[in-house]
């Protein structure tokens, strides 16, 4: 089960955060933000080694006792973080990868709205609906 979905902009400011109800919001925000450092590391190390995967999906960034933090980055320097329960066994890596791809799609749709100003907070009904469907496993 995803407990947190976060979209972070180019300047590392959060553009969108969804937290499952009844979850510790602040703590999850913090975990998502910490994930950024790991993402940064992964991106820079990849460009230095030849034969890199060039994958947008970055896999598991790190895990705590309670949570697992996954990351994804776009060519346009946007980062997505999905946090699941550490105990989660139902969501396989491939499924998480697909969730990120859907999230990516949702994000590009928002950017293509001429009324959306890139870098600003995302407030879009369609995006909300999309994320809700995503975390519900639909």
């Amino acid at each position, binding site marked *: 089960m995803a407990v947190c979905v976060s979209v972070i902009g180019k300047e590392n400011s959060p553009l969108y955060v969804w937290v499952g109800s009844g979850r510790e919001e602040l703590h999850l925000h913090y975990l998502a933000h910490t994930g950024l450092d790991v993402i940064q590391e992964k991106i820079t190390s990849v460009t230095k080694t030849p034969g890199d995967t060039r994958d947008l999906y970055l896999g598991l960034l790190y895990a705590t006792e309670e949570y697992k933090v996954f990351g994804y980055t776009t060519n346009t320097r946007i980062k997505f973080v999905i946090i699941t329960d550490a105990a989660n066994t139902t969501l396989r890596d491939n499924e998480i990868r697909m969730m990120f791809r859907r999230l990516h799609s949702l994000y590009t749709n928002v950017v293509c709205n001429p009324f959306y100003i890139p870098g600003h907070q995302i407030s879009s*009904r369609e995006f909300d609906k999309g994320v809700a469907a995503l975390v519900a496993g639909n």
Partner: protein
Amino acid sequence: MSRQSMRANDPKKVSGELFTLTYGSLVAQLLKDYENVDDVNRQLERMGYNIGMRLIEDFLARANPGRCYDLRDTADKIQQAFKLYLGVSPSIGSWSPGGDEFSVVMETNPMAEFVELPEHCLGLRYSNILSGVIRGACEMVQLEVMAWFIADQLKGDNMTEIRVKFVKRLEDAIPAGED
């Protein structure tokens, strides 16, 4: 990298996206240039009118549709043109009893894909350029019509609907000196 992205991006689809995004940028620019939304609506209609007058040539060359004998023929051609240029198949319906008015109904509007109207723009007729295109194109084939949006999915309606009303047939200009 090239081959991978070429495969994934269907050129036809992306062309359509380019058009949609360009149109969006144009509308955004108009909103900056004009203080009120009604002026933007008017400007969009006028631009559409200019485009319609030239687009008709392109349409006649491509589709070779033959003459329009009555409004129903015109409606058919409009339907064809939407398919050709926007890639959608609207339905034509809601004819008035006198047969001088009809609706062009779209289930999806490619021009407004990805668009979500903000609160302060609810009076905006986002796709108003289409009204103008219809008017301009018809005028070039000697038909004066009025075209306007009566429903818009951007505003929560189920469909996007343009109403077209026949005003009069335009006679060829009578040379000066004749009555």
